[in-house]
């Protein structure tokens, strides 16, 4: 079996399960982010706002001469905002919120697909792996997948914290959850694209590693099957002879 055939076999395996993962992983991702916010700030969300993402994107396209500018602005457009409004001051001040931005959802969906493929390849290897050396190689693939997922997950965070000037960039999320210091967050801010690309690279590299092992195992199994069949034929031939 070639790599391509093996990859296709794993991708097309159980389509309903695949669809469930593509939808389920992003949902789980945003649920985890929301739980993290609730635990960090110790208050439940008390407002939700829906935005006309399609209408707003159309307006951006219409009013932004450079397409590259428009694409960047649309990528930061909100669809849903769920957060906590503090009514102790004035008529309420939104303290924190989780924002659903379709572009970022797409990034998480791509992460889901890559994760699913790597998981299925891992499962294939696990089912067919027999010796310790192969298990060590498997670990490298799993580690790369893990690192990639963390990087993409971090760079896809869309949390908003009402500190003046802060916009829902990925480092705001890291700072909100106390994962990085303020100065580290500012220094990391421009690296979003690189972190994303690095994350996807790790995921893809991990996938290739697992695919490589899976393909070798598949070939070995095929070879063993063939030898077994040949043995059986030979044995059968001897008997007839």
């Amino acid at each position, binding site marked *: 079996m070639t790599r391509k055939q093996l990859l296709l076999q794993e991708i097309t395996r159980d389509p309903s399960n695949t669809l469930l993962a593509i939808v389920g992983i992003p949902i789980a991702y945003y649920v985890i982010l929301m739980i993290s916010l609730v635990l960090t*700030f110790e208050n439940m969300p008390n407002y939700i706002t829906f935005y006309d993402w399609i209408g*707003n994107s159309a*307006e*951006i396209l*219409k*009013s*932004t*001469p*450079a397409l*590259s*500018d428009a694409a*960047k*602005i649309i990528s*930061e*457009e909100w669809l849903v905002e769920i957060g906590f409004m*503090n009514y*102790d*001051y*004035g*008529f*309420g*001040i*939104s*303290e*924190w919120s989780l924002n659903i931005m379709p572009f970022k959802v797409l990034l998480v969906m791509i992460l889901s697909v890559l994760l699913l493929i790597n998981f299925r390849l891992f499962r294939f290897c696990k089912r067919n792996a027999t010796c310790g050396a192969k298990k060590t190689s498997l670990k490298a693939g799993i580690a790369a997948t893990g690192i990639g997922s963390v990087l993409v997950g971090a760079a896809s965070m869309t949390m*908003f*914290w*009402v*500190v*003046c*000037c*802060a*916009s829902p960039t990925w480092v705001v999320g890291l*700072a*909100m959850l106390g994962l990085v*210091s*303020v*100065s580290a*967050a*500012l*220094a990391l*801010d*421009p690296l979003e694209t690189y972190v994303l690309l690095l994350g996807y690279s790790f995921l893809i590299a991990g996938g290739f590693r697992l695919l490589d092992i899976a393909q070798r195992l598949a070939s070995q199994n095929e070879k063993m099957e063939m030898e077994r069949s040949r043995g059986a034929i030979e044995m059968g031939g001897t008997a007839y002879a």
Partner: protein
Amino acid sequence: MKTSKTISKIYGKALLVGVVTAFASSMVMAETIKIGVGHQSMCTDTYTAGIIVKELGLLEKHLPKTGKYEDVDYEIKWSDYSSGGPITNQMMANKLNFGVMGDYPLIVNGAKFQETKSLRTKYVAGTGYNLKGSGNAVVVPVASDVYSFAQLKGKDVSVPVGSAAWGMLLKAMQDADIKPSEYSLKNQSPAVGAANIATGKIDAHADFCPWSEIMEFRGTGRKVYDGSETGIPYLHGVVVREDFSDKYPEVVTAFVKAVYEAGEWVKKDPMEAVTKLEGWTGVEKEVLYIYFSKGGHLTLDPTIKPEFVDALKFNHGVLKREKAIPPLDFDEWITEDFIEAAYKELGIDHDAEKKILVDPAVANASLPNEIWHSREGVSSYTSLNEFLTAVNGFNATGAKLNSTYVYDEETGLKLFGKVAFFIVTDEGAVATFMRKAEAEAYAAKVKGIVLEFADTLVKVASIMDGIDDPAKVAAR
């Protein structure tokens, strides 16, 4: 056959009439100009370009209605935000044309737009300023033993990162020679920072207007550092998308005229202004009074002065060092065209107003202290002893005082009486200070003592009554 020809003719005529009518109606159909304004009802210094203009309908009043605007319909949308950052995002998405914000968010706005290939904003007017930088401040819990900025070494300090208060804090730390490793900086929103100060969960919180005064007024916080110590002007202003200002310059001029008129409305009757503003924003009127009254922190003036451009450049440098901002071409970004046009149309001398700079230390030197009685309103007292005697008098009758106001001897800033440090000599109270260290230095000079408000009231009452023992006065 004949019938079908007749029907065709009727249809043809009807079609022709329809097309002509549609064309004619499209010719006379009024253009609708959508105006989106992003403002901040929890940031006092933006009010004259935001909530006041909105509530008094000043933009509608000044919008052009002649010439190319004769058949125009205006659709104005006001959006209230908690900070300047989201306003910039919304302006980029063309959901807002105008944005009103403080100095740091303003330069982030200009720089973020200049970072794009095809979009720009213009800084068209200010709203108000404090020449020395008051408005931002560092507050500690009221029971804290921290009385000076230097004591923050080794402490946890929170601030909304990226705000004007953050810039002030960084500069103050540099000036005080406190290295970043010598204090712990936390990123905190104004409301959370204020709540943490109230519960003593943080050593200090730096914030922008009017949060420090809200904490002082509510009796939870005490200032240990005022933005005026940086000496860098604190200002707010208006930015507009360039494509909008190019297409509708007269509308931008109208907006600037509305900003000017909003300022004049406040100056005419500050008491009415703060009472209405409390209803519009939810911020206590006594807090707003410290900004908008005569001698208040805020000088309402939309002109763009060279000193302000220098301050903005300085702020940009701070953000640049923190790697938090792209470059900004100030010459391209700032324009006085609209403010000059607005002043001309209003018959005001722009150049003369541009030259005026109000320094609270000079302007407030002889202003009277004030008592805000809940029913009788504000009364003024030229001497501190008169003021304190009057407070004692009101207290004796059980009258409810909303607030009291005195001035810092050092900076001329208006303070709540209850948070000031009073210098008391044998003649009674002679001066008030915002910070304890300066009060102590002054007390040593005049051979007086430093007292807080409640103790001062008792001491002054004893002096005025000729009683030696303040305890007897207190007991009485």
